[in-house]
């Protein structure tokens, strides 16, 4: 197990380096620079000085080398915009984003998985049809639009929840953005669960269990659910990573102080260190979740070995 973990962690290094290189090269070639958004000074010398101060007058390979050297000691650099260390900026934003993503995923799992199970246990029934209509709708609805609808309904019409903001970080501020973000993975989980359960229900080992006289409840609980969990877990893992990206829209809409809104503003203003730092955190999170999922496979299904 330990060697598996070490190997997997080492495997992430080339992935991280590739992402860093890609983002660096991308922002070196796209038009537009931080200098034009920071100053409209009439003196061309100011622009040159600003480029020098920000290190933008060096060749790309020199900048990349310097960046990697700093990164190796955990220094993400200094933001061009705020002149704060990027690590400080990201640290302030990480917890709200994690709050949002975990809440959205909890919403998705709590509703999506039972919905898929119920639909699969009664295929073709009215329950199944309704569940799948909900699932397809959830996958089709744009998060921005859904967020607005939720705001309109629960804040403006019912007055139950605030329509925006972080407040004190409490639950009432979290519910609407988490629901807006969680509907899509909820729908996907419902569909995945239904498909997985339907497939497992017709498997040989399920038929054998039934023929041995095992009750339907025990069959579902011990054979179907456990086997379906591996597939569900894979979907959950992938969705965790995807949510980091999708949170951008929701955070901006709800004025949620997460990494997503930091990333948007940093990209628009070509704040390269902040963009690189934010993307790096997203990638590391994605890799960490995937590693965790791989470990959990073995816990759920002992037949999976860490070869």
């Amino acid at each position, binding site marked *: 197990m330990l060697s598996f973990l070490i190997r997997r962690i080492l495997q992430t290094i080339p992935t991280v380096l590739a992402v860093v290189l890609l983002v660096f090269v991308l922002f070196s070639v796209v*038009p*537009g*620079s931080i200098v*034009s*958004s*920071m*100053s*409209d*000074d*009439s*003196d*061309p*010398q*100011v*622009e040159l*000085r*600003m480029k020098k*101060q920000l290190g933008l007058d060096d060749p790309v390979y020199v900048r990349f080398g310097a960046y990697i050297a700093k990164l190796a000691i955990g220094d993400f650099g200094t933001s061009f*915009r*705020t*002149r*704060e260390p990027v690590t400080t*900026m990201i640290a*302030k*934003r990480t917890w709200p984003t994690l709050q949002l993503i975990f809440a959205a995923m909890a919403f998705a799992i709590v509703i999506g998985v039972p919905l898929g199970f119920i639909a699969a246990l009664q295929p073709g029934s009215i329950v199944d049809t309704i569940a799948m209509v909900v699932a397809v709708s959830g996958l089709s609805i744009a998060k921005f639009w859904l*967020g*607005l609808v939720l*705001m*309109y309904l629960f*804040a*403006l019409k019912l*007055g139950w929840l*605030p*329509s*925006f*903001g*972080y407040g004190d970080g409490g639950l009432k501020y979290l519910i609407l953005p988490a629901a807006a973000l969680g509907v899509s993975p909820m729908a996907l989980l419902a569909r995945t669960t239904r498909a997985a359960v339907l497939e497992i229900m017709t498997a040989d080992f399920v038929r054998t269990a039934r023929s041995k006289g095992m009750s339907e409840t025990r069959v579902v609980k011990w054979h179907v659910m456990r086997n379906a969990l591996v597939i569900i877990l894979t979907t959950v893992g992938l969705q965790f990573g995807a949510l980091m990206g999708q949170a951008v829209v929701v*955070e*901006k*809409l*709800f*004025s*949620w*102080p*997460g990494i997503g*809104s*930091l990333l*948007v*503003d940093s990209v*628009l*203003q*070509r704040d390269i260190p902040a963009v690189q730092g934010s993307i790096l955190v997203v990638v590391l999170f994605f890799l960490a979740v995937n590693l965790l999922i791989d470990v959990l496979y073995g816990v759920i299904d002992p037949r999976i070995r860490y070869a």
Partner: protein
Amino acid sequence: MFRIVAIVAGLGLALAATAEAQTPRKGGTIRMTAPYGSSFTSLDIHTTQRAQDEIYAKALHRSLYIWNSTEGKPVLELAKEDVVSGGGLVHTFKLRDDAYFHNGRKMTADDIIWSYNRIMDGTKAYPGARFVRVIEGAAAVEKGQAKEISGLKKIDDFTLEMRLTEKVDPGFYFFTALTSIYPADEAAKESFIQKPIGLGPFKFVEHVPGSRIVLERWDRFYKPGKPYADKVIVSVMAEAAARDVAFRNKEIDTSVLGPAQYVSYQADADLKGTIVEVAEVFTRYMGMNPSFKPFADKRVRQAINYAIDTDLIINKLVKGKAYRATSWLPLTSPVYDKTMKPYAYDPAKAKQLLAEAGYPSGFEFEWTTSQNESWGLPIVSAVIPMLDKVGIKAKVKQVETAVLAEVVRSGDYQAFIYSQATGPDPQAALKCFHSSTPQPACNYMNFKNAEFDKLIDEAGQADDVAKRAQLLQKANALLYEEAPVWFFNYNKAVMAVQPWLKGIQLNATELTHQNVEDLWVDETSPAK
């Protein structure tokens, strides 16, 4: 159009009169919104020139001057008196002796000198340097040739002498937050960027990046009885639709409106009364590059102005959220010439001018634009068929806003559409077209006209205010005739303000920039 302006001005006066008639209430919370992005750039206001950041900075910081919306000009703020001598180049300021920083220390002339020297640190390229550079010796500090600005002299703790390089009104140079006065001892510390200290009516409490800034009343603020409110919350809300819900839900007190919302608020009996509007000092236009052969001919540039049905675009596409431009200087400019008329929509005249210029069949050009809903791609898309009718084909080149700024400054375009600050100082706005102004500065169309230069030079030397205004009006009229741009519109800034928030100022430089100490909320405000 002028009737509309008059109505707007009347509404503004009525609002102001109503506010005056009531006794301001002490206490409560003002909940403003910052609509121009997903976050604030920095808590070091010297480093950022975004309008978004000045919204909170107006509560936290103070500069030597402040914008007075009623008078439409900058007035002294941190000084009680300005004695001008030396042929208009030397200003001796008697500073306030009752201005305290939020750490309890009294402001002195040393803080102003320290702040201006900081802004001129050439290795940091602070955006406010372009204003401070007007002080003698400031440029030498910027270039590293001197350690201190020679044109700033402390006479005593509360008397400051400032020698300028040009005969200008320093108010226009030292009223924005870019030249805020910092406490010399505190601002040098690393912690300042996390917990800024200013001279403003509210002190810093909390910044939740990407969400809000919270400030609370500074009891030692120098204006007696002010500020009225206990607390100010500035929430970052970049999405117009989200602001709309929050405003209707009474969660925020102010909301900037776009064209679509402007129409819907006007149509809603409950919301119509919340609208506040002002002609801001921004001119929207299509700039034409004279090095692109057809645009070198004045008749072609005039033809473009005649070929576009500008009123139709303003009414239908911009939903009336703009004022028709009659030349460069905006409606709220102190020297705006009310007798000027815009170019008429006259395609026949446009065709005639094109034929006279040697383009009877028209020509093709590339038009660089951003996606901006008020002056970008939607406008370009509406204009293209109008130009096509007179034989001019436009090819769209779409870029991001940040890229457009670079394109405009580099001159790497045939035509572009843009929004440019054309005030509050009319002389500075027109000087952009002076042949001595470099293209990357603000002479984006690389305009050169000897007659125009002469008018601007004479205006710069004129001591008589009326004569100066007359010269600037002539220069503005000359621009209209030369048509270096398609004169599109002057921005109409529109904000919805909750009925319980009083004292809103019709700030033509930027409506969201409010002198927060003058705002107050009555007892009907849901925020306690």
